[in-house]
């Protein structure tokens, strides 16, 4: 690997039986493509994508790719270190593995790391208009940023049907045959307007 990419490969180590390789953020996709397609590497199965933020504020955040070679039965852990003061951005690997789509959406949702050229980078676990931040970041309070009543209020005015893209509903091609109100809801995308707090109870 070092022969192929030289100084773009950072330190490599073995920890608890896992081989971990640090890769430069700019070249990560090329390295992962090389690992997937080179005959004697053949890491063709993407087990997971996740991210790590350490409690030590000095340490960078890491995006972690867990690869597995189905033929050679070996694992490899590829990490990209992202300094916290930089823009948290890496290249999407969806062109290499289609299954990375939702995994990258999850990392984006939970850690706020953006993936360049991702086809559909939206929140996946939290709803789309969730505004309290990225829950797995160390600066995120356990109970969220808003008061409980405000959280319930926002949640109650969510539109439960708006979490899906047209593709996920697989009705995109029949959009014009749908009833008018459903078309409007889909076109509107997210939820209804949240009413202002402070009205008299019972007159809604």
């Amino acid at each position, binding site marked *: 690997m070092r022969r192929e990419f030289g100084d773009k490969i950072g330190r490599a180590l073995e920890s608890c039986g896992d081989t971990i390789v640090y890769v430069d953020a700019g070249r990560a996709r090329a390295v992962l493509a090389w690992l997937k397609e080179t005959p004697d590497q053949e890491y063709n199965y993407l087990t997971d994508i996740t991210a790590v933020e350490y409690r030590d504020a000095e340490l960078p955040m890491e995006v972690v790719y867990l690869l597995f070679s189905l033929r050679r039965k070996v694992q490899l852990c590829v990490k990209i270190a992202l300094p916290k003061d930089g823009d948290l951005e890496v290249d999407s690997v969806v062109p290499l593995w289609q299954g990375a789509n939702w995994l990258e959406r999850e990392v984006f949702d939970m850690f706020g790391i953006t993936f360049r050229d991702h086809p559909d980078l939206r929140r996946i676990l939290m709803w789309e208009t969730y505004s309290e931040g990225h829950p797995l970041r160390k600066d*995120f309070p356990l109970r969220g940023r808003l008061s409980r*009543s405000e959280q319930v209020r926002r*949640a109650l005015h*969510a539109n439960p049907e708006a979490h899906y893209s047209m593709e996920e509903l697989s009705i995109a091609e029949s959009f014009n045959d749908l009833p008018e109100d459903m078309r409007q809801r889909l076109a509107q995308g997210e939820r209804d307007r949240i009413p*202002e707090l402070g009205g008299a109870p019972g007159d809604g």
Partner: protein
Amino acid sequence: MGVKPVDSAPGAGKTIVTQMSPNWITSRLDFLANWARANSLWPMPFGTACCAIEFMATAASRFDISRFGMERLGYSPRQADVLLCAGRLPFKLAPVIKRIYDQMPQPKWVISMGACASTGGIFDTYAMTQGIDTVVPVDVYVPGCPPRPEALLYGILLLHKKIRGETMVDKAIREEEILSRGGLRLPPEFVDEVSEPFGNSVHQTRSA
């Protein structure tokens, strides 16, 4: 009760009946209606977690809730009269359970099964409602983590008892809850107060 004196009307001293008062006929009809309602409840299971497994055990032959008139589980809210929330309710499901509750026809009741549905349980986090009573009104809370089927059956019997005490004279118990303009069914201060951490979760505030 139900009678208010009218002072300024002509013929002072008369009384005008403003609402139906309980009498022999209403109490007999209440008895009949409540007997029928209590013994033919159709639950709408809203199972989100491990409590739903206990609910399945309750519904299956060993514990058999059909002994208490719950022969049929109404998997459509429009054909059910007990919403049985078995498990935690994340914020993302709050509008869903609200919509299901709104779709159920009156008369309807809600059982909150388990610690998480009743209080948020161990999930005192950014993603979880701290009790489904912040979203829909609850009639019976069944404690436990998860409650055993006997506990759920006891909760259902308590609900029977509650239904037998209802009367058609009191119109307020059949009123639909409408969200206030503030967007909550309870005052915001009240929601904040019931969502306060208690017990062990007071000590898990390292990052909060």
